[in-house]
């Protein structure tokens, strides 16, 4: 018989660490198998397993509570088992996001994928939920262990992904599930002998599972899979980190010849190349360079070569060096000094070392200086000034329809461009090359962002500082720190004419020069740029079918262009050639939110109906509503704040991985500490007041951060990373601490209530968390992350107002 003082705190922490690690790992794996935002969406919804667990525990609590140890151990084991098996099955369902618009069967497959992935979360939630019910008098401590473990899991999985590939990490997670079961068994006074016998067996089984079970089955429609179909191609190198899988492909029989945007007038063939993929997509190339300048001549026939024809740049900054095409282009044009920035050190290693002889060790070339850094952070911290800043080629046209629409990108925002303008020497240029999207969307959106950045920089005569050319495949936008001279304009016209590129905009450009070589039905680019620079800009932005509002740090969705008002028209056109216009990611997000809401309502109402007979009738109606309002608001608020601040701190820490570790880790650990602190008030009358105080602190801190974080980060942005990490922790910890208090205190208030309400509250909280994860992205797209924080604070306020009264039998 388990005694009440045998609280399973370590095992709860272990299973929580495993669950959060599993969540992050699934996103990494499904980003590789499919595309990032589908991974995000699928995993978010799978967390509904927590909501289902609430309903399950409402029904089974009575039977399970007295048999906690056995049930909990089984759940932990089931988590360990299902975390591996369900993933292996889910990735074999050959679900293809792009077929969602064509084939209803794929919706079914999507649902099956989600159901399978929800199972491990369901089992883990059962364990944690039952522990909260079983040990109701110390549930704050249990919850603290849960949060603390989750924080460790968030940091731990990222550390593990630096060491082992995700398929191996998955086995570790599975093992962690079984380890949690073993610890739980011992914590609950179980005999050590079964543990000693079974753990090695489990470890052996996990070790000897065939590799094919966990190896990611990459979608056949991703770039890497497509290229590997060509005979003579083979993977010659692979590296993994939390930044993704880097793959290098050699093509022996048929050369790669990667030169997007090459002029139709060009007769040049690129030299030998190796294909470079990140997460099996987004092909770039490592180009063979023997020091022979003539081999690189093809790089002069791309739209991105335009700035080199306006002046001989002394100092060039290449953002996103990747395989090195930008550096080679600068070398071809005799740039004096080249600073190259690349975030992924593994890419650098491959280009410099593993394929150093092939690439000509371009990062070590005289005049080239490599910086392993995030581009935005480099722009903020760099001291030098440049004659030319080349942004990385952003090719949104070659990937699957709309899959990038929901990806945050802080390099194409107004603030980023403003920072880049500051780094320009007098008369220097920023060059931004993008894949063409038709009807014009991201290309014009970037133009609008450039105008806003120039306005924010206090530049005058903005219309004289911009130029835009386009081929059939790419466009290049130039922003000049100064006005384009007549000589500049002549150079632009000559460059474009010789390569049959179209002029879309330059100062005082006559209409008849537009739309000559790559003819559209109308001069959309010319008309669009004129309208964006004209007095009718707001009207134009309002009337245009797509969203061309400049991307900002608050709404960093450069590739998102669907307007809600156009959505129904786009859906109707999906089978008539309009599929590519419909950002399937966005549509899926909207549909997912609706479905999640429906499921959540069902999951929340179902237990209420089932327990009606024996317990709910004992409650006043208003109490039930309060319980619902309290736990739903908390579930929404917690994740909304977490997600929004994660985005805010990406800009401060200049690295998505560091930001994820620091923010998630700090929030969860601090909340765990807060929850532990709350234990002393659990079940007491003053718990309502403590909660109110905590919520007040959350609102004050939240509002203060909203106002001060921007300037603070701006001024501290160039400090060393370790200092910035410490500042982040110091800023997050008090907020996290306060956020850890309301949930356990609310749950404690129900401890003496009709017992079914605790699991019900647990389920409500789980459902709300899932909704908030999806809602956060959708809100951020339309209203920005600041709005997400405001909504989160409102949720906390609503929670404080609906704190459940202490109820007793």
């Amino acid at each position: 018989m388990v005694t009440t003082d045998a609280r399973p705190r370590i095992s709860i922490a272990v299973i929580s660490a495993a669950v959060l690690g599993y969540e992050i790992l699934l996103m990494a794996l499904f980003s590789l198998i499919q595309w990032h935002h589908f991974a995000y969406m699928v995993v978010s919804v799978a967390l509904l397993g927590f909501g289902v667990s609430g309903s399950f525990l409402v029904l089974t609590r009575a039977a399970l509570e007295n048999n906690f140890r056995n049930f909990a151990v089984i759940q932990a084991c089931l988590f360990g088992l299902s975390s591996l098996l369900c993933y292996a099955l889910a990735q074999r369902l050959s679900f293809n996001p792009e077929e969602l618009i064509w084939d209803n069967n794929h919706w079914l497959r999507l649902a099956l994928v989600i159901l399978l992935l929800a199972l491990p979360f369901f089992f883990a939630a059962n364990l944690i939920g039952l522990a909260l019910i079983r040990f109701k008098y110390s549930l704050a401590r249990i919850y603290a262990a849960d949060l603390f473990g989750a924080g460790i899991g968030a940091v731990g999985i990222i550390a593990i992904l630096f060491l082992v590939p995700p398929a191996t990490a998955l086995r570790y997670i599975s093992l962690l599930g079984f380890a949690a079961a073993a610890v739980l068994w011992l914590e609950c006074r179980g005999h050590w002998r079964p543990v000693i016998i079974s753990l090695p067996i489990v470890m052996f089984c996990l070790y000897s599972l065939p590799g094919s079970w966990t190896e990611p089955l990459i979608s056949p429609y991703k770039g890497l899979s497509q290229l590997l179909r060509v005979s003579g191609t083979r993977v010659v190198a692979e590296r993994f980190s939390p930044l993704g899988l880097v793959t290098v492909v050699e093509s022996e029989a048929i050369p790669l010849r990667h030169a997007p945007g090459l002029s139709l007038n060009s007769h040049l063939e690129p030299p030998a190349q190796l294909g470079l993929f990140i997460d099996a997509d987004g092909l770039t190339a490592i180009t063979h360079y023997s020091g022979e300048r003539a081999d690189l001549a093809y790089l002069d026939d791309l739209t991105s070569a335009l700035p080199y024809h306006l002046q001989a740049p002394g100092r060039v900054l290449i953002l996103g060096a990747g395989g090195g095409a930008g550096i080679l282009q600068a070398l071809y044009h005799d740039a004096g000094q080249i600073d190259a920035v690349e975030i992924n050190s593994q890419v650098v290693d491959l280009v410099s070392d593993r394929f150093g002889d092939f690439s000509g060790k371009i990062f070590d070339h005289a005049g080239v200086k490599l910086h392993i850094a995030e581009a935005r952070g480099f722009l903020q911290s760099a001291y030098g000034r440049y004659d030319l800043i080349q942004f990385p080629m952003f090719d949104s046209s070659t990937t699957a329809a709309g899959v990038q629409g929901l990806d945050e990108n802080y390099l194409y925002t107004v603030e980023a461009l403003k920072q880049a303008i500051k780094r320009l020497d007098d008369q220097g240029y920023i060059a931004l090359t993008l894949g063409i999207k038709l009807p014009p969307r991201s290309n014009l959106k970037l133009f609008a962002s450039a105008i806003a950045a120039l306005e924010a920089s206090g530049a005058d005569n903005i219309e004289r500082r911009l130029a835009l050319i386009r081929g059939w495949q790419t466009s290049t936008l130039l922003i000049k720190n100064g006005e384009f001279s007549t000589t500049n304009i002549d150079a632009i016209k000559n460059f474009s004419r010789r390569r049959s590129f179209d002029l879309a905009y330059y100062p005082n450009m006559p209409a008849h020069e537009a739309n000559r070589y790559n003819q559209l039905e109308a001069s959309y680019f010319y008309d669009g740029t004129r309208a964006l620079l004209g007095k009718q800009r707001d009207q134009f932005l309002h009337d245009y079918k797509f969203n061309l509002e400049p991307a900002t740090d608050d709404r960093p969705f450069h590739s998102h262009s669907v307007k809600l008002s156009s959505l129904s028209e786009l859906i109707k056109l999906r089978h008539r050639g309009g599929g590519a216009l419909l950002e399937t990611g966005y549509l899926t997000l909207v549909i997912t939110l609706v479905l999640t809401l429906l499921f959540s309502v069902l999951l929340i109402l179902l237990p209420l109906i089932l327990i009606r007979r024996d317990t709910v009738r004992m409650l006043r109606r208003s109490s039930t509503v309060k319980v619902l309002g309290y736990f739903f608001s908390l579930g929404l608020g917690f994740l909304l704040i977490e997600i929004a601040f994660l985005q805010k701190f990406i800009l401060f820490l200049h690295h998505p991985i560091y930001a994820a570790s620091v923010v998630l880790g700090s929030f969860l650990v601090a909340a765990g500490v807060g929850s532990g602190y709350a234990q002393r008030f659990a079940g007491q009358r003053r718990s309502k007041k403590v909660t109110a105080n905590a919520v007040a602190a959350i609102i004050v801190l939240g509002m203060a951060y909203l106002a001060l974080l921007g300037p603070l980060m701006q001024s501290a942005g160039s400090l060393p990373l370790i200092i910035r990490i410490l500042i982040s922790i110091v800023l997050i910890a008090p907020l996290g601490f306060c956020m850890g208090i309301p949930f356990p205190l609310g749950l404690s208030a129900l401890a003496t209530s009709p017992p079914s309400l605790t699991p019900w509250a647990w389920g409500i909280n789980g459902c709300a968390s899932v909704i908030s994860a999806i809602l956060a992205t959708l809100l951020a797209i339309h209203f920005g992350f600041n709005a997400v924080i405001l909504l989160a604070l409102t949720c906390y306020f609503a929670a404080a107002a609906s704190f459940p009264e202490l109820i007793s039998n």
Partner: protein
Amino acid sequence: MIFLAIAVSRVESKHAQAARQFTEIDVNHERGVAQWLRPQALHRGDIEALEHRIYRNTITIFQFIVKTHGLVVYQDQVDFTMRHPENFNRVLDRRLPAKLICNDLFVMFVYYEIIEFLVETKIGQVGFQAYNPSQQCGTGNYSTMFGPISYRHSGSVMLGALLLLVASSCEFDPAQSSNDLRDDREQMIRLIEDDVRSTSSYLKQSSLDTRVLDAMAQVPRHKFVPPQVVDMAYQNRPLPIGHSQTISQPYIVAIMTDLLDIEPGQHVLEIGTGSGYQAAVLAEIGARVWSIEIIPELGKEAQARLRQLDYDKVEVRLGDGYYGWPEYAAFDAIIVTAAASHIPPPLLQQLKPGGKMIIPVGSQFSTQQLILITRGDNDEFITRQVLPVRFVPLTGEH
């Protein structure tokens, strides 16, 4: 099933001798029935005679199915089933009871016919294998959906099936079935016409060349898709064809073909054969087509398919399409359906003055835009970027 068992014992001895003569198996997927036969000792005439025999009796089998289940079976479906017996059920209604048994019966029926043929023609030393190359079966065994079954049993079972067929007496009109399938194609054409009308402002025309639509009404698209999606063959949508590739949406195929403005007898180069459907449509218009496929498996399948369907005007080559096909240049039109990071300069040079090149841009399942390049008389290239969708006015009312 009892009388089938009796039939087994009765025919067993009859075929024992033929069975002993079977040697090791091999597979030939080139065409029709030959896919089960290794024609070591068979002449082409023999194979054709065998095919004819099986074909005739297949119709009888379908007759039986139609009679007992009140279903409609198309002539084209009979053709399809001949090539893919494992999908016998797919061409029948899904409500068909015990369909797995029917499926197996059909496969075995084919083997029975082969054995009968061999016995009658006294041809020895002929090896054969079941339709599934991944299943290994030894001498004298057939691999079916339920695993290896003795040839003797299968033949016997099929004899029983034939007895049942003899008992059936319903009328079956192959022409009627063929018409039904043609109806599907015509329905598809009507859908395309509707879509084109609605995209007229971008395409700068309100209807497509009737020759294009006529051609598409002739090409049996269901023969260009794999069995698992054959029931969607005439839907106006792209379909996966294996090897990470798709067959384009008919609507896009129609627009691309129309934009090329092909005249009969003109020379067309295609980079990216895929299933071969686009090439078949061009050939149906009367063009002479040279097509290059970079994925070997896909190219071989398309090659065999086009040959089987008698598209003699299409020549398929496996390999790199970057340098085009200089031996037959210059071309009146070039279609580049394989994804390319840029337009290969040698291809542009193989375009005749006044010739047109078309390139669909986008992903496998969503064409974003069509690039139409025209080579002017003075070697200047003019590109038209055509949206395959009606989305005007761009700044109009939402």
